[in-house]
């Protein structure tokens, strides 16, 4: 049956989905290293939990869908999703929440839509959205860095072996800033709040600013390797910087600087690793610009005016919805048709 036609070209470039995914993982490694160093080894535990859960969920669904296991488990896409989930979840999130999020991402957001390449939404962001909606309290508890917890402590907290004391956790810098501004009711300015070095560090979240810088470097490496194109990150960062800059210039007391917004929360991770996901994102050159800019803009709006601590996940999910429309209206002109039409 399959033998009655030939399939040129016979020469093929040395490329595969696995190679693409492996390079994405490699680009995340420096950020993970800095994360481990600054925040603690909890992230490594979370990555392990999420990867296991992702592979398990993937294998289960592939069996149910009667698909071969080897090529799809080996393509690395589930691992990428797992790592991203681990990186966007609070590092001290209980293990079961990471498992629930990962399974939801793989089973519902990816496999139920047809598996690799078919998901309209970024699975990692779906996991984040589901968990922050379902477990808002747990999803906004970030490690209190003043405590300097070791591996054993973090391990015990993640697996529920020691009680989760309120003192162990704190809000993210973004959340803390928002609450601070709200409580201050116009009396306390951004500058005063940011002066607290224990929470905000040099220019964004304490410790987090260096991790986000690593995301930026990893992203630039991906661009250099031609795994991603320049459009989405540029538009994302540009839009986020533009709107935060404009409002910051308008009232620096009530709105944080672009630098703070770019280097806190998941902005850089979103710009280089999540919004660039080709499956759920736009694919045309102009479409990518619109997609990135939209995501950047929404990120800011949700962060500053919305009810959730960070807006990256919802912004990207919202833009995922628009992808088909964007692609439809941004088809590039083809060879020979640039002038006429």
């Amino acid at each position, binding site marked *: 049956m399959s033998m009655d036609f030939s399939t040129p070209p016979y020469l093929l470039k040395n490329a595969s989905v696995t190679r693409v995914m492996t390079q994405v993982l490699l680009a995340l490694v420096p950020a993970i290293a800095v994360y481990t160093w600054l925040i603690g080894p909890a992230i490594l535990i979370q990555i392990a939990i999420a990867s296991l859960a992702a592979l398990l969920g993937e294998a289960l669904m592939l069996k149910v869908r009667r698909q071969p296991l080897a090529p799809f488990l080996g393509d690395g896409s589930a691992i990428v999703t797992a790592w991203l989930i681990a990186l966007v979840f609070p590092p001290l999130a209980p293990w079961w929440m990471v498992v629930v999020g990962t399974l939801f991402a793989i089973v519902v957001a990816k496999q139920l839509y047809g598996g690799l390449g078919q998901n309209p939404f970024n699975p990692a962001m779906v996991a984040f959205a589901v968990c922050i909606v379902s477990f*808002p*309290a747990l999803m906004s*508890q970030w490690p209190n860095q003043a405590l300097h917890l070791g591996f054993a402590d973090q391990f015990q907290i993640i697996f529920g072996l020691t009680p989760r004391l309120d003192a162990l956790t704190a809000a993210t810098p973004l959340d803390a800033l928002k609450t601070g501004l709200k409580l201050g009711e116009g009396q306390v300015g951004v500058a005063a709040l940011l002066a607290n070095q224990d929470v905000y560090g040099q220019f964004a979240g304490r410790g987090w600013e260096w991790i986000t810088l690593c995301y930026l470097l990893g992203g630039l490496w991906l661009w250099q390797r031609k795994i991603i194109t320049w459009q989405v990150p540029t538009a994302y960062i540009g839009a986020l910087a533009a709107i935060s800059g404009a409002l910051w210039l308008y009232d620096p007391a009530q709105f944080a600087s672009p630098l703070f917004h770019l280097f806190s929360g998941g902005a850089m991770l979103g710009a280089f690793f999540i919004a660039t996901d080709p499956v759920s994102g736009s694919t045309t050159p102009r479409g990518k610009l619109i997609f990135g800019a939209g995501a950047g803009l929404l990120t800011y709006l949700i962060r500053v005016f919305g009810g959730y601590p960070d807006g990256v996940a919802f912004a990207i999910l919202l833009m995922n919805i628009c992808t088909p429309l964007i692609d439809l209206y941004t088809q590039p002109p083809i060879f020979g048709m640039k002038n006429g039409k």
Partner: protein
Amino acid sequence: MSTAKELTAPGMAARSAVILFLFVIGFTAVLATVFSMTEPTIKASAAEEEMRTIKEVLPAALYDNDLLHDTVDLPATAELGQDDNSKVYRARLAGQPSALVLQAVAPDGYAGKIRLLLAVRNDGRLAGVRITQHKETPGLGDYIDPKKDKNKSRPWITQFDGLSFDTLGEKDWKVKKDGGHFDANAGATVTPRAVVKAVRKALKFANENRDRLFVSTAAK
């Protein structure tokens, strides 16, 4: 269904108008009949309902008058969060003022307004607070309603019982997260923050206007 293709447009218009008119008259009549039949019962159960909520916030020992008819109508009152008219029930024991029952609104709930009913004794202590209407997230912010609160033995809302500005300084009327007195479930501080704020303001209003309210003539 009958059709009349021969009719011209105006003719058809007239015919349809007449038929629709007849239907409307007929069914409106049915509706009117049902309404008049059920009206007394509905009114009775509404009154019963009103009384039942009041009973929840105000112990029966504190009054012997007909609360539903000893009321004052307040215009829009910012202190109560009301941007419309609201009612104040006046409880009397043996003819002497004993407590006020106020309707208050917390406008800054997580999902819109939260309506409250609270009873304030004459000594400035809260007799009780109840949520009468809210749209807070189920499972997250809805524990302010004792029916939804998981802690059945001591629902969150009962924290207010017996409190006054004498026992708790006005500055401490905040949730613990903001450095105040009141507990709040982690992850859902917006709702209790709004409720605490509304109760504090309403209590203050009651303390300041108690005499004026008891003096003013009864509504109706």
